[in-house]
């Protein structure tokens, strides 16, 4: 099994950064559940969701190897492209101030408020705590599984690289969560989402092209070229988007006296 480093390191980096964002979001809710409803329910719900995710990967993962690589690349690459472009679009709009930035502290406050209003525990198990922790771990975990499969769509070696990146992100977030015991607001999540959007869009475009049967100029190096292209486009459209939003929101155009 030969892994080309020109594909392996961007794959691991994309897996790491994208998973880091998802794990930070999950940690915020799990911390809120633990702080308000107790750690037993929070950790039980998280562990149960991780077990279900592992079962899904073990059951369905081997099926992917039976499908022709070009078909996997086209379908998974197409989904990754939709996912990455959606993520990049949102990151550009956030950077331009058109939509609000994601704030982990605000998300934590909202979640603790909701959990306090959910009523007292009923019986031996706090079902509210278990369900809340299970749901967020499951949802964010499914996104991580999808990202790992999608960015590693080029073969088993790349899947290992992407999974290694995701595991590194999981360990980092777990360690920081245990040490800090508060939402990881210091993680520059909005900047990370910008970079991740660029990387996922680049990988998605590359895999779709491969799936269609196109020959990329520079072969694997074109992933870097695609990433730089999407980054340049995004950098150009942040100020353009901000300016357009300001102009259209001005009192003259909105006919506000």
């Amino acid at each position: 099994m030969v892994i080309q480093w020109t594909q392996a390191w961007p794959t691991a980096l994309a897996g790491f950064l994208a998973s880091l964002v998802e794990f930070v979001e999950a940690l915020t809710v799990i911390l809120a559940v633990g702080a308000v409803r107790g750690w037993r329910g929070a950790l039980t719900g998280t562990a149960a969701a991780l077990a279900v995710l592992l079962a899904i990967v073990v059951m369905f993962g081997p099926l992917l190897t039976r499908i022709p690589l070009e078909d996997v690349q086209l379908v998974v690459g197409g989904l990754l492209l939709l996912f990455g472009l959606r993520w990049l679009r949102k990151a550009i709009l956030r950077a331009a101030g058109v939509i609000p930035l994601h704030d982990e502290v605000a998300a934590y406050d909202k979640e603790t408020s909701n959990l306090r209003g959910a009523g007292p525990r009923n019986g031996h198990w706090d079902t509210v705590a278990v369900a809340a922790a299970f749901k967020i771990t499951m949802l964010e975990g499914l996104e991580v599984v999808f990202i790992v499969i999608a960015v590693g769509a080029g073969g088993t070696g790349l899947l290992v690289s992407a999974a290694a990146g995701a595991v590194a992100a999981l360990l980092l977030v777990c360690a920081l969560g245990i040490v800090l015991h508060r939402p990881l607001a210091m993680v520059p999540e909005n900047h990370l989402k910008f970079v991740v959007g660029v990387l996922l869009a680049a990988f998605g475009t590359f895999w779709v092209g491969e799936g269609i049967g196109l020959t990329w100029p520079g072969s694997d190096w074109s992933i870097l070229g695609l990433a730089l292209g999407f980054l340049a486009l995004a950098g150009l459209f942040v100020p353009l988007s901000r300016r357009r939003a300001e102009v259209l929101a001005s009192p003259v155009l909105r006919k506000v006296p």
Partner: protein
Amino acid sequence: MDFLKTVFRELFGLVVDDVGFAGATVGWIGLVWVLATFMPLPTPWLAALLFGGLCLILAESVLRRSGEVR
């Protein structure tokens, strides 16, 4: 059952939050696939065409969303 609905909604939401944007992306992929299959064009040009079209779709969507009154 509600949880499964939530999971499917979230999974769908992973890739589609603007139907027009997602539709244009899929349509462009389909068009390049048709060109690659039936037209004798050099594939590096088709690769560039794929990337260029995606950039235009992204740019149009960003500007359209920016123009919506907040």
